[in-house]
C-alpha cells in the first residue's frame, strides 16, 4: 500500500477534487489540446503570454486523478513564471516522474511538484502525469494545435 499512498498523496487527491485554474480562458494567447489515447484523458491548456511572462494559465477537460491534479498543480506553479522558467520546471518534472532525480534531494527546486514523486513507481502512469506539461510546452512553443502522448 505504501507505493499506492505515495502515488495518491493528499496534495494530488486535493487537486483532483478541487482543481485550481479549471476554466476556459477567453483572452488566451494560445490554447492547445492534449490527448492520451491510451486512457482517453483529454485537456485543453490555455495560456496568456505577455512578453516572456505567463500572465495566466488555465485548463479544461477530463481525465484521471493523476492527470487532473498534475494540470492543476502545474497551472498554479507556472502562473507569473517566464517561459524559460516554465521550460526548466518541465524538465525537472519530467525527470521526477521518470525517476531520474531524487525528490528528497531537490525539494527546494521542485516545490509542490514533489508530490508527484510517487508516479515514478508506476511507469504506465507517467503519461498521465506529464500530459498537461507536454501540452503546455507545445502551447509555449506555439507549435501545434493538438498533441498526443502516443
Amino acid at each position, binding site marked *: *500500500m505504501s*507505493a*499506492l499512498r505515495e*502515488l*495518491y498523496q493528499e496534495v494530488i*487527491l486535493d487537486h*483532483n477534487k478541487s482543481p485550481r485554474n479549471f476554466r476556459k480562458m477567453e483572452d488566451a494567447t494560445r490554447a492547445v489540446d492534449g490527448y492520451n489515447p*491510451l*486512457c*482517453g*484523458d*483529454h485537456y485543453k491548456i490555455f495560456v496568456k503570454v505577455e512578453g516572456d511572462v505567463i500572465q495566466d494559465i488555465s485548463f479544461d477537460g*477530463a*481525465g*484521471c*486523478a*493523476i492527470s*487532473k491534479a498534475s494540470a492543476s498543480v502545474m497551472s498554479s506553479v507556472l502562473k507569473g513564471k517566464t517561459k524559460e522558467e516554465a521550460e526548466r520546471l518541465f524538465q525537472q518534472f519530467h525527470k521526477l516522474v521518470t525517476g531520474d532525480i531524487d525528490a528528497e534531494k531537490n525539494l527546494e527546486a521542485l516545490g509542490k511538484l514533489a508530490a508527484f514523486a510517487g508516479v515514478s513507481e*508506476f511507469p504506465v*502512469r507517467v503519461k*498521465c502525469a506529464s500530459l498537461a506539461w507536454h501540452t503546455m510546452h507545445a502551447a509555449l512553443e506555439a507549435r501545434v494545435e493538438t498533441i498526443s502522448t502516443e
Partner: protein
Amino acid sequence: MMKNPDDTLMAEFIERVDGIKGCRFNFPLLRQSVNGKPLVYLDNAATSQKPQVVIDALMRYYQEENSNIHRGVHYLSEKATQSYEASRAKVRKFVNAASVQEVIFVRGTTEGINLVAGSYGRKNIRQGDEVLISAMEHHSNIVPWQVLCEEKGAKLRVIPMNDDGELLLDEYERLLGEKTRLVAIAHISNALGTVNPIKEMVAVAHRKGIPVLVDGAQAVPHRKVDVQDLGCDFYTFSSHKMFGPTGVGILYGKKQFLDAMPPYQGGGDMIKSVTFEKTIYNDLPYKFEAGTPNIAGGIALGAAIDYMGMLDMEAISTYEHDLLNYATEALRGINGVRIIGTAREKAGVLSFVIEGIHPHDIGTILDDEGIAIRTGHHCAQPVMQRFGVPATARASFAFYNTKDEVDILVKGIHKVIEVLG
C-alpha cells in the same frame, strides 16, 4: 518408453478437476502473486491465460518438429505439416465448418476482417454502395471498412443500440437496403458483453441477399459456435482469446465466397505455378495463406481446442453465466457503481464506472490488490461516446475465474472508493 505428455496431463487434470473451478490448476500463470497478493486475472476479454497443454504444444513443436510446412519431402517437414493440418481439422470441427477448405489461418481477428475487406470488399463494393456495421463494434471491425469505403466512395452505415447496449433490430432491418453489400457485426461485444442475435440477423440479411461477416473474437471462448447453424458467410476469431497463443487466428468463409475472391496477399504457399507472365493460385484454403505461417501457434491452437473440448463448451457457458450474474449482482450493490451494458443476453464482460473516479485510477488501485482488469476505451471509442463516458473499467471472465475472485474484486472496488471517493 516415454509416456505421452498429453496422457500425463489428462490424468493430472481429471484428478484435480473440481467442477470448472479445478481447471485453474492447469494454468501455471494463475498461481503467481502480484504485489504480494494472489493474482486475480479478470482481463480475459483482452487475452486469456494458457493451459499447460498449450504451452507444451508450443515447446514440443520447436523441440521435436520445427520445420517448414507444405514444402519439404523430408521427415520433419511432413510431421510439422501433419500437425498443422490436424489443427485445421480441429478448428473445422470446433466451429462446425463444412470443410477444412473453409478454414483459413490468419494472424488474428483483425487480419480476418482485413482479409475480407481487402479481398471480397475490394472486388464487390463500388461507389455508392453501403457496408453496414453496428454501434458496438471494436475498432478492428470499423476501420477496415472505413478504409475500404473511402477508397471506393462507398458509405459506412451503423446499426444503433439502446441504453442497455442492445442493437435495435427494427432499425437494422430498415438499414438493410438496396445498396447494402455486406453486414459486419460482433457476435459478442468486447466493451459491453452484449450477445447479438446473430442467427436471426443473418437470416434477415440473407432474405435480401446480403452476406454477413461475424467478429467472433469474444464469442468462441464462452460458447459453442456452429457457423452452419448461424448461417453467416464469414466468421473470424483469435486464438489468444480462447486459451491458445497470440499471433494466430481463424477466418471461416463459405467456400463459394472464398472461391470467387481474389488472393489477399501474394507470396509462397499460395501459388500453384509462377512465371513472369502468369501465376496460378493455389486451392483453398492455401490461396489465402501466403508465406510461412505461425506454425507453432496454429498447432498450439489445436491443443487449446482439445482442452476446451475436455471441459465441454456447454459446461463452460453455464458456469460463466452463473459467475457473471453473481458479479453483476455484487457490483449493483455498491453505491456509486454504474454498470455499462445491461443487455438481457450477456457473456464474459462486466463494464462499469464509479461516479467521480476515473477508470484509470480504479485500475491502478485494483492492481495494487493483485487484480488485473482493463481500463480505457477497449478499442471501442464509439461505444464510450454512446454511453457518454470517456472510458470504463472492465472485468472480463473465463471459466477458471471463481466467485471468490469476484468477492476480492468487490472488496477492491470498496477500497478504490475509500481512497478516491
